């Protein structure tokens, strides 16, 4: 057999790669906990005293309204997506309509259209109907952005419900609602939760629509972050604190649902 050190060296290499990829994230955390003058030294100061000043400044500068806007747009659109996607996925998997594969591919094809191609008409509609800078309008757009992925995902999760159990339940005389509640729901629940997380992450991350369609009132967290794009001088700790706070919900959700995240991003094609 191979000598033991060969196996160890793969592990060491993997650890090295992992740390290299994680270093910018770790550095972001560390810098966010330094004072502005310690953050901007060259060579970098690893051992400078820790402080929460950066976070204090970030929240004092009015970070709450954009964060709350992001939460309401992301959670609102996720709920509407689930309400629309679950029945649609049911019609595509458990009791399939005829030509269901065509319908499924139509959903996917809408996702492949670059959003920039629809940006202008959507902006004009928002302008004419007085919905510019309005968080409800953004919520509806995020719903349409996530709906195709949610339908695909939910379909692949619902297809995992074994046909035999469904047949057995209906032979036993269970009605549709009972089957849905007792048989389908328990099996599909983790899938529904994963779909919800993925929709939340995509809405939370979105910048282009939010940047064009919102302004003072309805600006989201990513739009708020663009305020730092050209900032010069000693703002490193504040920029890092902002990046940490805005990324935190996604980091938590993503770490919690690592496997489902892959499945979601690959539209359920990878199990």
């Amino acid at each position, binding site marked *: 057999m191979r000598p033991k050190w060969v196996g*160890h060296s793969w*592990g060491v290499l*993997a*650890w090295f*790669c*992992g740390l290299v*990829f994680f270093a*910018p*994230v770790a550095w*972001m955390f560390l*810098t966010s906990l330094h004072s502005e003058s310690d*953050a901007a030294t*060259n060579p*970098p100061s690893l051992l400078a005293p820790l402080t929460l000043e950066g976070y204090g400044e970030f929240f004092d500068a009015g970070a709450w309204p954009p964060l709350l806007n992001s939460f309401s747009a992301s959670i609102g659109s996720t709920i509407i997506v689930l309400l629309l996607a679950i*029945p*649609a996925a*049911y*019609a595509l998997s458990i009791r399939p*309509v005829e030509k269901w594969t065509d319908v499924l591919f139509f959903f*996917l*094809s*809408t996702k*492949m*259209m*670059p959003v*920039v*191609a629809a*940006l*202008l*008409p*959507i902006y004009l*509609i928002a302008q004419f109907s007085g919905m510019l800078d309005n968080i409800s309008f953004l919520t509806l757009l995020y*719903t*349409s952005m996530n*709906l*195709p992925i949610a339908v695909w995902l939910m379909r*692949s999760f619902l297809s995992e419900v074994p046909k035999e159990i469904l047949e057995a339940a209906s032979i036993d005389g269970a009605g549709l609602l009972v089957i849905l509640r007792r048989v389908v729901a328990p099996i599909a629940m983790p899938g529904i939760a994963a779909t919800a997380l993925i929709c939340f*992450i995509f809405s*939370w*991350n979105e*910048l282009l629509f939010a940047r064009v369609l919102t302004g003072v009132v309805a600006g989201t967290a*990513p739009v708020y*972050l*663009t305020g730092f*794009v*050209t900032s010069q001088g000693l*703002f*490193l700790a504040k920029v890092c604190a*902002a*990046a940490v706070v805005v*990324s935190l919900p*996604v*980091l938590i959700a*993503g*770490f919690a649902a*690592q496997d489902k995240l*892959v499945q979601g*991003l*690959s539209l359920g094609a*990878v199990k």
Partner: protein
Amino acid sequence: MAVMTQARPDTDDRPPPVPRKKVNRWATRAPLLPALIFLIIVTQLPFVATLVISFMKWNSLDPTNRGFAGIDNYVNVFTDPDLRSSVVNTIVLTASVVLISLVLGLGLALLLDKKFAGRGLVRTLLIAPFLVVPVAAALIWKHVLYNPEYGLFNGILNWLGFEAQPDWISSMPMTAVVLSLVWQWTPFMMLILLAGLQSKPVEPVEAATIDGASSFQIFRYLTFPHLRQYLELGGLLGSIYVVQNFDAVFTITSGGLGTANLPYMIYQTFYQAHEYGEASAAGVIVVAGSIIIATFALRTVSSLFKEEKR
């Protein structure tokens, strides 16, 4: 229908199937309709409007001079050197980000497929870049890593005793954008390829090992063919997302220094230059390009999909 019933006398004793069937058909379709109608209204109709506007002369700063423009906007898009270079930038950016992150992702997936202490933790560390909000990630690269005076890269050079303190973004703008995106997308490729590796059947590998196959032969003839469709899937999904990238270009270079890609260019043409017609024409061209990619993408996904149905 009456003809059919006559042709099949054995169904005579059953209740007439026609009305029931009709109700059923609508009952199975009904759950699908809200989602379908919503998507058609919100995604398809705006594109029709884009198509119409692309043939119009329309600058919102010059409202009296609006009208039919024919193919002028398309001619402008194709002759404008800025727009042409944004097409090239889009291709360069997408191809390099997708290819580099696929190769790195494959290497990392192969490493993580081996058993070693703390494998779960390394996997979690590797996923982190993908979970940082894209604008936040781009900001970190711009201000915290690339900054020539107090960025981490030059800090490390200084630490190691090098005199050179390059200005990364202005000396290599495209590479700077690509590098930050490769950092974000490698974990995605790794996750998909790792899922592929872990779904690989064990028996053929064991049989090949017994037959004396080298580990390179096993990779070349067993692992790689199995991974192929996952590589295709990663490449195509990566392309769909990276082609549309706006956040990194907008944040790191603000489209300057020859890094503007099509999404950024369209954003600027419409939002800052107020050239609605030209922006729409560029949008239509992007869609035409995407349809070409999407055709391949759908074919790949549907081949995966057939396998699942089998």
